C-alpha cells in the first residue's frame, strides 16, 4: 500500500529531481534506476526522504545566513536584546517542527521496512528460481540446487520471475548487493541469510561485495544476467555443457584465496553442497539447528527450525 502511494508521489517528484540532477540524471545512478519492485520502493523512499529533509534544510540555511547578516555587529540599526534567552513560542516551534517530521518519517520507516523485509517472498504467479550464493575469498559462487549446476562471478535468471536467494560465506563476513535490484544483505560463515529479488528488465546487472574482505575485495564483483526465459534456458545449457563437476573438496579448492577474470561453470553439483559449506563450521555430532542466534527473533513462516533470521540451519 505504501508502495503505491509512495510510487505515485515518487513518480511526480522523481520528475522534479530528474530535472534538478539533469547533469547526471538518475540513469547513471545505478541505485536510483531500479529494474524491480524492491529497487522501486527504495528509490521512491530515497527521493521522498530527501525532499522531506529539504524542508528542514532550506529554512535552516536561510535563517542562519539571514540572521547572522541582519544582526552583524556593524549594523547598529537592528534590535539588540542581550538578555533575551527564552521564548515559549520559539521553543514550541523548535521542538514541534522536528517532532512532526519525525512522526511522518517514522511511519514511513515502519511501513517500508516491513514491506522491504528481504526474507519476504515477492508475490508472483511464476515459480521462483532458487539460488544459493556462497562468498569465498574473492569470488561469488552461485549454486542452482534444482538444476544441479553452479557458476562463479556470473549468474543468470529469467525476468519477471522471483529470485529466492540463500547466502552464506566460506570464511569471513561479506555483503551481497546488485545495485539496480536493491537491498544488500550480509553473507556469513556457518549461517544462512536470505534475499528475495526480481527484475522486470533484461540486461547485465552489476553486483558485488560491499564488506571489506582483504586483498581481492575490489575484484569481487559479479554479473547478474537478467534474461528472457529462452535465453536463460540456453545459458543453463551452456553451463551444463561447458561445466565440470563440483563437490565439496573441489569447492574448497576453488574457495582458496584468488581472483578470477572469467566466469567458471560447473555441472553436476553435489546435492546438499550449500548445507555442507555451512556445516563445516559446526562440530560434527552437534545438530546444526541447535545453534541459537541471540536477539534476531523473526517469525519465519517458511522455516520452522530456527527463530532467527540469520539461521545456522543448513539449507535442505
Amino acid at each position, binding site marked *: 500500500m505504501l508502495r503505491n502511494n509512495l510510487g505515485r508521489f515518487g513518480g511526480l517528484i522523481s520528475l522534479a529531481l530528474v530535472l534538478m540532477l539533469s547533469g547526471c540524471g538518475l540513469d547513471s545512478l*545505478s541505485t536510483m534506476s531500479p529494474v524491480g519492485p524492491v529497487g522501486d520502493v*527504495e528509490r521512491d523512499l530515497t527521493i521522498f526522504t530527501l525532499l522531506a529533509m529539504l524542508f528542514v534544510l532550506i529554512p535552516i540555511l536561510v535563517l542562519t545566513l539571514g540572521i547572522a547578516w541582519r544582526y552583524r*555587529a556593524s549594523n547598529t540599526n*537592528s534590535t539588540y536584546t542581550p538578555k533575551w534567552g527564552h521564548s515559549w513560542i520559539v521553543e514550541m516551534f523548535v521542538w514541534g*517542527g522536528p517532532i512532526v517530521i519525525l512522526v511522518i518519517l517514522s511511519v514511513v520507516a515502519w511501513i517500508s521496512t516491513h514491506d522491504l523485509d528481504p526474507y519476504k517472498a515477492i508475490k508472483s504467479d511464476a515459480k521462483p528460481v532458487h539460488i544459493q550464493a556462497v562468498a569465498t575469498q574473492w569470488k561469488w559462487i552461485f549454486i542452482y540446487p534444482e538444476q544441479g549446476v553452479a557458476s562463479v562471478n556470473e549468474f543468470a535468471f529469467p525476468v519477471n520471475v522471483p529470485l529466492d536467494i540463500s547466502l552464506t560465506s566460506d570464511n569471513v563476513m561479506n555483503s551481497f548487493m546488485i545495485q539496480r535490484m536493491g537491498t544488500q544483505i550480509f553473507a556469513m560463515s556457518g549461517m544462512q541469510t536470505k534475499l528475495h529479488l526480481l527484475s522486470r528488465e533484461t540486461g547485465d546487472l552489476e553486483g558485488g561485495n560491499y564488506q*571489506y574482505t582483504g586483498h581481492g575485495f575490489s575484484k569481487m564483483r559479479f554479473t547478474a544476467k537478467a534474461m528472457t526465459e529462452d535465453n536463460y534456458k540456453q545459458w543453463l545449457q551452456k553451463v551444463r555443457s561447458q561445466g565440470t563437476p563440483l563437490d565439496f573438496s573441489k569447492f574448497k579448492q576453488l574457495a582458496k584465496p584468488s581472483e578470477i577474470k572469467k566466469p567458471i561453470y560447473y555441472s553436476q553439483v553435489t546435492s546438499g553442497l550449500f548445507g555442507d559449506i555451512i556445516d563445516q563450521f559446526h562440530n560434527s555430532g552437534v545438530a546444526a539447528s541447535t545453534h541459537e542466534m541471540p536477539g534476531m527473533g523473526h517469525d519465519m513462516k517458511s522455516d520452522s527450525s530456527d527463530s532467527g533470521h540469520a539461521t545456522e540451519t543448513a539449507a535442505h
Partner: protein
Amino acid sequence: MDILGKLTLQSIPYDNPILMFAGAIMIGTAIAVLAGVTYFGKWKYLYTEWLTTVDHKKIGVMYLIIAFIFLLRGFIDALMMRAQQAFASGGSEGYLPPHHFAELFTGHGTMMIFFMGMPFLIGLMNIAVPTQIGARDVAFPYLNAVSLWLTASAGMLVMASLIIGSFSDAGWTGYAPYSGISANPGVGVDYWIWALQISGIGTTITGINFFVTIMRERAPGMKFMRMPLFTWTTLCTNILMVLAFPALTVVLALLTFDRYLGMHFFTSDGGGNQMMFINMFWVWGHPEVYILILPAFGVFSEVAATFSNKRLFGYVSMVGATMVIALLSFTVWVHHFFTMAQDPLRNSIFAIATMVIGVPTGVKIYDWIFTMYRGRVRFNLPMLWLIGFIITFTIGGMTGVMLAIPGIDFKMHNSEFLVAHFHNVLIPGMLFGLFAGYHYWFPKAFGFRLDEKWGRRSFWGWLIGFYVAFMPLYVLGLMGMPRRMVSYADPAWQPFLIVAAFGALIVLFGVVSMAIQLIVSVRNREQLRDITGDPWNGRTLDWATSSPPAHYNFAVIPTVEDIDAFTDMKERGVAYRRPDKYEDIEMPRSTPAALVIGALSFFLGFALIWHIWWLAAVTGVGIIVTVIVRGCNDNTWYTIPAEEVERTENEWFRQLEKAGVV
C-alpha cells in the same frame, strides 16, 4: 631468536619505499626535536615543567600537540587514498598494493578518531573546564597525567607500526572474523587492539576524572542549571565515556582471547558468534560518535553566545537536548548493520530511535540560530566555524536521517554514500567545533591570540575543500561504489574521484594555512598579546583569570550568581575584585609516575603485540610497582605561600590597570 618473540629483522618493511620514506621522516623529526631540546639545554625545563606536570592547563596543551600530530598523519593517509582512487580506474591498479591501501584506511580512521578527535576534545576540556567552573585543578590531577601518557603511549604504538611490522588492515571497526587469527595472522590487528585498549583505559580514567571534577569542584553558587554549556556537554561526554568504553574494552579483550588463546568468541567455528562482535563494537561505537560531537556542540554554544554578545537562547532546551542525546545514543547501535538480516520489527524500532535523536539535535541548531537573533554578531574566526558548521552539519544530518531508514540503508550501506555521510557529520560537527575551540581558548592557554587572517584562509580551505572532496562521494554512493576499494573497473566513477582528490588538495591548503597561522602568531605574539585575560568579551569564568592563568587559576574562588557568571560580574562591577588579604594555596605536586606508567605501557603493548613474554612480564610488574609506590607517597601536595600569590596577582593587576580595565 625466541627472546624477541615474533620480532625479526624481516618485520621491518625494507621493500616498501613509501613506508621507509615515511619512517625516515618520522624518525628524522623525532631526532631533530630531541637534538633541538639538547642544543638549547631545555631538558630540565621540559622535564620539570611539562613531562612531570599534573597541571590541567599544560596537560591540555600536550593533548592538543598529540591531536595535531595525528591530524597531520591521518590527513596524509587521506591524501594518499585520494591519490590512489583518482588513478586506479578501469584496469589500472594505481600505485598502492591492496594491503597498503587497507592499512591506510584502517590507520586513517583509527587515528582520526582515537588519536586526533579524542585528544583534541580532551585537551580542550582540560584547558577550559576547570577554569570554567572556578576550580584550581581537576579532581584527580595525577590520574589526569596518567590518562595523557596512556594516550601518548598508545599513539606511539600506532607510530611504531609504521616501521616495525604493519598496522591492521581490518578497517577501523575491525570486524571479526576478518580480524580473527585465521584470516589475519599478522601483528597488524594486535597493534590495533593494544593501541585502542591502552588509549581506551586512558579515556575511561579521564571520564571518571572529569565527571567527579564537575560534580564536586564547582565554585560556590554554580548550581547545575548555572553551568556553562561546554561544561554541560563535557559532563555528558564523560558519562558516556565511563559507560560506553567498557563495551569496547570487553569486545577487544574477547577478540584478544580468540587471537592469543585460541578461544572462539567471534570465530566462524567452535560456536563463535561474529554477529556479537558487531553488536558489542557498536554498543560502544555509537555513543562514541556523540563523545566526539557533544564537546564540539558545547564549544559552539559558548561561541554563539560570546560572539553574538548575547545570552544563549534556550539554555534549558540546550541542556535537555544534550541529555536526551546522551541517553538515546545507547539505543540506536543496530543502525550500523540493518543489513545483517534482523527481522523488520527490530530494524524499524532502531530506525525510529535513530531518527528521534534528530529532534534534540535539530533543537540545538535552532537554538544557536536564535542566539544570534537580536544580537550583535562579531564575525571572528570561531563564529565563521560556527556558521560553516550549522550549514554543513545540517546536510550531514539530512543524509543521516536517510541512512536511518532501513530501506535506504539497504542500498547505501558500506558504500561511498556512507563515507560521505560520516565525514559530513564528523568534519563540521566535531572538527570545526574543535578548531573553533582551539582559536577561542588559545589565548587563554598561551597568553596571545592566533592570527585571524591565516585562520580565515584555513577556514575557507577546510569549508570549500570539504564540499569538493565529499559531495562527489554521495554521487558515487548512489552509483553503487563500495567503500574501501583499492581499484575499480567502472570508468564512470573516475571523474568524481578526481574531483574528490582535488577537494582534498583544497583541504590541504586549509591545513597548511593552519600551520602558517601558528607560526605567524608565535612571531607576532607581542601584538597579539592578551593582556587582560578576556580577549573576546567572554561570559564565563574561564575569562575571569589572567592568560595564561596562574598555576592556581583563581587566587580567590569566585562566587557564581548567573549562567553567564563573568558577564554578570562585569555588569555588577564586581569582576577583578581584590581580596583584603591573600591566603596560602595548596596545589598538587608534579610527579614522574604518570610518565613512567605511560612509557611502561608502551613497552607492555609492544611486548604483547610481538609475543615477547618476558618483557610483558617485566613491564606489567613495573606498572603495578609504580602505581603502588606512588600510592604510598603522602607528600603529594605543596603550598604556594600567600606572599607569592599576592606577587603574582599584583603583576596581573598592573597589566589590567595598564589596559584600563580596572
